[in-house]
């Protein structure tokens, strides 16, 4: 069982054996359906055709399924198409990328599937592309789950449904064929150190991801010195103080020039009051070459914490800087040899983005673009800057990947 599987939940409306023909030859190679009962014949036909067939509710070995939200810009609960604003007035985006990354950190040797059911009666092709890319960009897989109208429309060979299905499959195939990316390691500037045992610490990840900071998930139990390598800052969101050993490793990180953001239960804050100590929510202390930012009150607002982290660390150190992108999720990773990089961007607007640009910090001097529509890497205009490359994207739909080389 590997990430090669592209799983799909068998639609309830597909009762006949002939409906198996709808998935034959597509990107789907793993079906979740009831092997007994009415679908026994379908299950047998699928197994015969080389599909993996899994009973609903079972957890196959090598796979961890996480419950997710339907990804995208959240619409108003009123049922209208009004967009719900986030705390900044920016549209609120639901994304499962952070869930995939957290599940990967907690379960390092398994593949992550995201179970997120469609929320609307009929979804656009773009919504399905986002659902696929949102889980696949960080290395997971969305369990393809069709809305009722799409499932019915496919049975009737309705053109709109067929087109949605085609685009959904193109997206799934795109990620299925990018096996080399699995070896890439996330680039990060900010680490979140926690046991992730609380919703609060999980929500910090969600909101750090929403701020488009490139982050590293660091389990307390694995917070060795190398875990902090290359980072500028750490967030310690837990109320429970760290063990003496973890605490000392974090303080070493600070002494070497890092920033720690922690709550008041962190414990004693060594060092001296920082020259720029005037912050409404944090007591700032200088320790060695670094800074401790200890919150004056408990860190119970993950949104505020995530944004404070960006500002305390400064936009100066952000690895990706975007223009004209609209609401996005971003993933920046690099080959272990550091001679190749990969920036994946999911554009949540249905219209995608035009004239979007991204500045990528790193040693890279060559860039190529991949999109789901154009499977092969194509040249993309870029501008070299000091320590960075700024890539100018053509009009793109929901997903773009920039392959970088030195």
């Amino acid at each position, binding site marked *: 069982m590997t990430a090669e599987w592209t799983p799909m939940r068998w639609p309830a409306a597909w009762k006949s054996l002939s409906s198996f023909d709808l998935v034959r030859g597509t990107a789907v190679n793993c079906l979740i359906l009831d092997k007994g009962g009415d679908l026994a014949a379908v299950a047998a036909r699928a197994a015969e055709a080389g599909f993996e067939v899994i009973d609903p509710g079972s957890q196959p070995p090598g796979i961890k399924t996480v419950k997710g939200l339907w990804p995208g810009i959240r619409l108003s609960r009123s049922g209208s198409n009004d967009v719900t604003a986030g705390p*900044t*007035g920016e549209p609120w985006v639901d994304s499962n990328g952070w869930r995939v990354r957290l599940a990967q950190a907690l379960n390092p040797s398994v593949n992550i599937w995201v179970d997120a059911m469609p929320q609307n009666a009929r979804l656009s092709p773009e919504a399905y592309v986002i659902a696929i890319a949102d889980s696949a960009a960080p290395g997971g897989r969305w369990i393809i789950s069709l809305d009722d109208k799409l499932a019915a429309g496919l049975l009737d060979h309705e053109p709109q449904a067929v087109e949605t299905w085609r685009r959904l499959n193109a997206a799934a195939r795109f990620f299925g064929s990018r096996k080399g990316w699995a070896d890439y390691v996330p680039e990060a500037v900010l680490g979140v150190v926690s046991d992730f045992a609380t919703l609060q610490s999980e929500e910090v990840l969600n909101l750090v991801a929403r701020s488009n900071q490139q982050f590293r998930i660091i389990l307390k139990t694995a917070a060795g010195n190398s875990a902090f390598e290359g980072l500028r800052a750490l967030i310690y969101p837990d109320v429970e103080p760290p063990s003496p050993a973890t605490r000392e490793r974090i303080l070493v990180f600070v002494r070497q020039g890092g920033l720690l953001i922690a709550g008041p239960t962190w414990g004693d804050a060594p060092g001296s009051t920082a020259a720029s100590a005037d912050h409404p929510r944090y007591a700032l202390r200088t320790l060695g070459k670094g800074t401790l930012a200890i919150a004056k009150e408990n860190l119970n607002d993950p949104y505020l914490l995530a944004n404070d982290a960006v*500002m305390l660390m*400064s*936009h*100066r150190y952000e690895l990706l*800087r*975007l*223009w*004209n*992108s609209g609401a996005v999720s971003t993933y920046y990773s690099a080959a272990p040899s550091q001679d190749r990089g990969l920036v994946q961007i999911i554009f949540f607007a249905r219209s995608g983005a035009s*004239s979007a*640009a991204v*500045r990528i910090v790193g040693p890279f001097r060559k860039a190529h673009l991949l999109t789901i529509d154009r499977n092969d890497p194509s040249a993309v*205009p870029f501008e070299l800057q000091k320590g960075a490359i*700024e890539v*100018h994207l053509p009009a793109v739909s929901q997903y773009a990947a920039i392959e970088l080389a030195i």
Partner: protein
Amino acid sequence: MHSCHTRREWLAKTAAAVSGGYRASASKLLAAKAPATSVAVARCKDYGPELLPTLGRMFDQIGGLGRLVKGKTVAIKINLTGAPTYRVGYLRLEDTHYTHPRVIAATVHLMSQAGARRIRLLESPWSTADPVEEYMLQANWEPRDILSAGANVEFENTNYLGKAKKYSRLVVPYGGLMFPAFDLNHSYEDCDVFVSIAKMKEHATAGVTLSMKNCFGITPATIYGTGAGIDEPSILPKGGRTTVHAGNRQPSKSAPPEIDSKSPRQDTYRVPRTIVDLVSARPIHLAIVDGIKTMTGGEGPWIREKLTGVNPGILVAGTNCVNTDAVAMGLMGFDPMADRGTPPFERCDSTLRLAEDVGLGTRDLKRIEVIGTPIKDAMFDFAAIRRERRAAAIARI
């Protein structure tokens, strides 16, 4: 040559013109006597090495910086309109709608050399209380380049209370066209010299945006913004200045309300008048317009017209904001004497006319001495581009 009056001078000179039917005739009188000063114009093709000496020469032409800033605290309102993540195509923000950082740095450097005691760079960035430096970093600027251009240079975000304990109330000397006074970040009061560095642009609501329109952004969104508090200012700014644009609500009750809440609610009426009130309450001592690289079609990438980055290669500077903006309009190919109905004021009132009417300065180019490059030699014809753009838009319909 320094002709923008202090608030106290204004109060003394215009107190009689505040109320009743006397106001109209007083306005005409004030307009006729509105100050006329020299305005420096220079060609400067880019933001390279020629920028600093060009600006220095221009400042000398209008009387020298030393006379204005020596030993003084200088506040400079720069123009960083719109979010820093929003560009016109792939063009850098400073090449279209933000005041270029090198113009800011060069001005800071020259002021520091001229003996300015302290230089404070002010802006009310879009919907945030974050430091201006962080806003600049998102625009891909290096704020240290500006901070290191002179001694005692600092930034302040004026979109909220900022570093002070209370807002400063600045009164409109003649009583106001829209507002009698404004509650502003302390930085606009705690300065001896106030400078507006604008970008040379058209503007969807006000026709043009030059040194006066730049000061629309001195109003804190905590009081005048979409998310302003009802009774008291909000802690953090949120959204744009719809209170002023649309008049759909009053500022926070802690601040002076509009003079006449039944006045027209059209932004094309309200914005020009509010600008004139603002630059009267907070007089501009030095107006600088960056027209080296800019854009046609509007003030920022959110405008739904054909937007084009252009390189007029022009700098304008003067000590009277109305005179300076009049010359800048002339350089853009527009007639600064134009009124509502005539480009670029097809659908709005002329801020320049309103400013002239209250006696801030003349817009009559015949009364303004242009030093340096004559207007006809430096003109970049925004007006012709506007005509062509709009004709093409009509043809498409």
